[in-house]
């Protein structure tokens, strides 16, 4: 019997180890139980909007590349979807290659998993089952959080079973050929949920859990992150990476005073920040370079220490994280520094209609995109070449700055009112379906209150230190940034946001953006900027209920109202989207004013709370109605939502 006993002990040990692994995974990915709940909640919400299929023709490139990669090849030999001449596909030595390989590689295990699952389960029912299981686990987590496990178990089981039964009753077959695109979409859906949970963790570490949860939910539900969550483009994935960088950056400073619960040392967190930037190069080297510049510029001067050992950890992590990028490039072009985006596009970016056309293949937002052969051929000209390369690398920022001053109208069209643009309209049947930042996410208007906060602080500071010379004030400001983790993080976030905008400004406004998708990470940085302001936290703390109720009313009543107006007032998709734009912009302007007022005087907090709820609701309504009514392509992941969308289309 000794073998049986040994076996049992082994089983216990294995269970113990599995539990430990699960706990560790939970801590690394979502932080704590509330973070897990935010993650699951985001998945539940995004699941409702998920349509399996292609929203934009660039995605053909990634899906075809994924199919090829699953067959063990980087070369895309046949177009399983669309054509080989899709935007973003590149040709090298007569062979076709995709791009954003980091994102494609991340989807590979998901594709394997989906293929495995569909050998035993019907694809038409897989997502319905998964969704119900996520609802169930969300209920369990919430039950433990609020101390009502039985009640939440009953409600959760009821909702999960009811939804599953409804979905099963309405389920239709889903073609197996959609599996690779579903895998890519699953990747971005998980990334979007990760955005929510990372914003939550950052908000909680900086302030408290209430702020964290509000910020996490807002980042996904009230900004276009939710719009792009189930669309397999790079934007949501790189947003998740950026949030990871910001979080690691903050931890690398905040844990300095002996963070007892850290899994990583401060140097480790610094290394993590750089490593995430390194992984970003595997998706889009140009964007990664922008973040790298901002990170180095803020990290090195404000780091707790730059001793040799720390730098070795940071540099080692960064170099290791660059390996996938370098190896992929070497395998494709033979030059480790020549990314697919720098090769010849398979098709000229002709545009076509917004959702038939893509954003083009020449997406190099500068950066490494500039250096075709970074190592100088002759050593003699090293200095000149270095200067040249530097100029080339920094050229995008200069061009961006120049374009902001030369063409302020574009800035206005990108951020405030997009309206009708003849050049863009030509791609969309003369409609205006590309919105500005404020039109897509009116909540962002609250960021302008920073000016008021800044002004009051500056006045107070100047009044306090009239005697101190300006130079000393500057030195003391730098010292604050060095000693305060939040000040350093604020600086980093602000710099990334500015550089990101600068790099993309020369190309904006552009067609096929819908919600200025190039700037998707900036929306989440705007949420960060909001939670860092005192008036926001005060409003959330004292008037949280008013904000929440006006949000819920704005979503449940507002969405219906908008739908009825669109259905009755026959204006088409272009008109419907413009209705959102005009309503969003109008509320955004009012919110900007009350937010500024709140920043100066807390008597305005009540009004600001209500308006913040409504602006957030308008962001959500755009996502919800786009998913259910305006942009339909392919079957919905949840059959019941598919049925609802059919019903709404008939109205």
């Amino acid at each position, binding site marked *: 019997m000794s073998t049986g006993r040994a076996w049992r002990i082994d089983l216990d040990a294995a269970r113990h180890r599995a539990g430990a692994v699960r706990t560790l995974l939970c801590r690394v990915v979502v932080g704590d139980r509330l973070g897990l709940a935010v993650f699951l909640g985001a998945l539940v919400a995004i699941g409702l909007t998920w349509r399996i299929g292609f929203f934009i023709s660039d995605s053909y490139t990634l899906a075809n590349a994924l199919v090829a990669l699953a067959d063990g090849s980087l070369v895309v030999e046949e177009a399983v979807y669309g054509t080989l001449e899709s935007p973003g596909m590149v040709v090298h030595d007569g062979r076709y290659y995709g791009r954003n390989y980091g994102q494609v590689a991340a989807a590979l295990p998901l594709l394997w998993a989906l293929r495995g699952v569909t050998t035993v389960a019907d694809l038409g029912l897989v997502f319905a089952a998964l969704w119900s299981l996520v609802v169930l686990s969300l209920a369990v987590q919430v039950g433990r959080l609020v101390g009502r496990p039985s009640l939440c178990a009953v409600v959760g089981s009821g909702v999960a079973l009811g939804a599953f039964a409804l979905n099963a009753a309405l389920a239709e077959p889903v073609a197996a050929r959609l599996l690779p695109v579903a895998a890519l979409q699953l990747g971005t859906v998980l990334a979007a949920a990760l955005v929510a949970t990372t914003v939550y963790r950052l908000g909680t570490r900086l302030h408290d859990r209430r702020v964290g949860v509000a910020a996490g939910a807002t980042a996904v539900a009230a900004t276009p992150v939710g719009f792009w969550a189930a669309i397999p483009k790079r934007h949501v994935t790189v947003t998740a990476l950026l949030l990871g960088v910001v979080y690691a950056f903050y931890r690398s400073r905040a844990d300095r005073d002996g963070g007892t619960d850290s899994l990583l040392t401060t140097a480790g967190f610094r290394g993590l920040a750089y490593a995430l930037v390194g992984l970003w190069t595997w998706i889009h080297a140009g964007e990664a370079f922008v973040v790298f510049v901002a990170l180095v510029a803020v990290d090195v001067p404000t780091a707790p220490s730059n001793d040799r050992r720390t730098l070795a950890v940071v540099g080692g992590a960064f170099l290791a994280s660059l390996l996938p990028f370098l190896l992929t490039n070497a395998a494709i072009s033979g030059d480790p520094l020549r990314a697919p985006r720098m090769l010849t596009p398979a098709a000229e970016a002709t545009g076509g209609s917004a959702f038939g056309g893509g954003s083009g293949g020449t997406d190099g937002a500068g950066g490494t995109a500039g250096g075709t052969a970074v190592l100088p051929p002759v050593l003699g000209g090293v200095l000149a070449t270095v200067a040249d390369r530097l100029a080339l690398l920094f050229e995008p920022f200069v061009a961006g700055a120049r374009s902001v001053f030369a063409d302020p109208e574009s800035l206005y069209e990108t951020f405030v009112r997009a309206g*009708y643009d003849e050049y863009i309209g030509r791609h969309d049947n003369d409609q205006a379906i590309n919105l500005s930042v404020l039109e897509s996410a009116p909540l962002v208007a609250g960021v302008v209150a920073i000016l008021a906060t800044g002004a009051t602080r500056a006045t107070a500071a100047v009044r306090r230190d009239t005697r101190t010379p300006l130079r000393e004030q500057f030195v003391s400001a730098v010292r604050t940034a060095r000693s305060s983790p939040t000040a350093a993080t604020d600086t980093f976030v602000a710099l990334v946001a500015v550089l990101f905008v600068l790099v993309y400004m020369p190309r904006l406004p552009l067609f096929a953006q819908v919600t200025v998708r190039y700037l998707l990470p900036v929306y989440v940085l705007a949420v960060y900027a909001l939670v860092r302001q005192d008036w926001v936290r005060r409003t959330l703390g004292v008037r949280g209920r008013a904000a929440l109720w006006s949000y819920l009313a704005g979503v449940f009543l507002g969405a219906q109202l908008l739908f009825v107006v669109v259905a009755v007032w026959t204006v088409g998709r272009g008109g419907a989207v413009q209705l959102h734009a005009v309503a969003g912009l109008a509320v955004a302007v009012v919110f900007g004013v009350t937010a500024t007022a709140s920043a100066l005087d807390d008597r305005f907090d009540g009004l600001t709370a209500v308006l913040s709820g409504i602006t957030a609701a308008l962001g959500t309504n755009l996502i919800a109605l786009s998913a259910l009514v305006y942009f339909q392509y392919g079957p919905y992941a949840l059959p019941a939502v598919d049925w609802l969308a059919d019903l709404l289309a008939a109205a």
Partner: protein
Amino acid sequence: MNRARVLVYGTAAVILAVTLVSGPAVGFVDLTTPRYDTSGLGEGNATVDRIDAPDSVTLERGYQSESYYLTVPDAKIRLASLSGKPTVAYGVDIPAFGYSRSTTHFLSEGTSGWVELSLQSDTLGSDTVTADAYEGTISIVLRDSSGKTVLYEEPVTVEVVR
């Protein structure tokens, strides 16, 4: 194990079991059937005794854009008899700019009396729409076992609303 736990695990087990049982490996039951069975479509017979079709169609300027939105009011047909699954295509043609669009409606057995036919709206660019009015044609075509029957084909005025 307490009751809540049993409930949660039970729910998860039911969901997984149903998914597995209906999956390709077991195949005990197929839960994913098309909501509309398209077999035998366009076959059968239908007799239409009255038709009510619109005599004007509008091309309305889109809100805050330079596009035009084509809306065709619903048409109605009255079925005197129906068997099988014939289809009815409701269409509009605007020859001036080579435009043609139709929506096919499936008639399912058991339908009788007045049936509403809708035509999906469409967006047209401003370089297409230049005049104030166009001549168009509205058509209703029945497809059943006896082939294609044009039930209705009449000119219609396409009004441009700016």
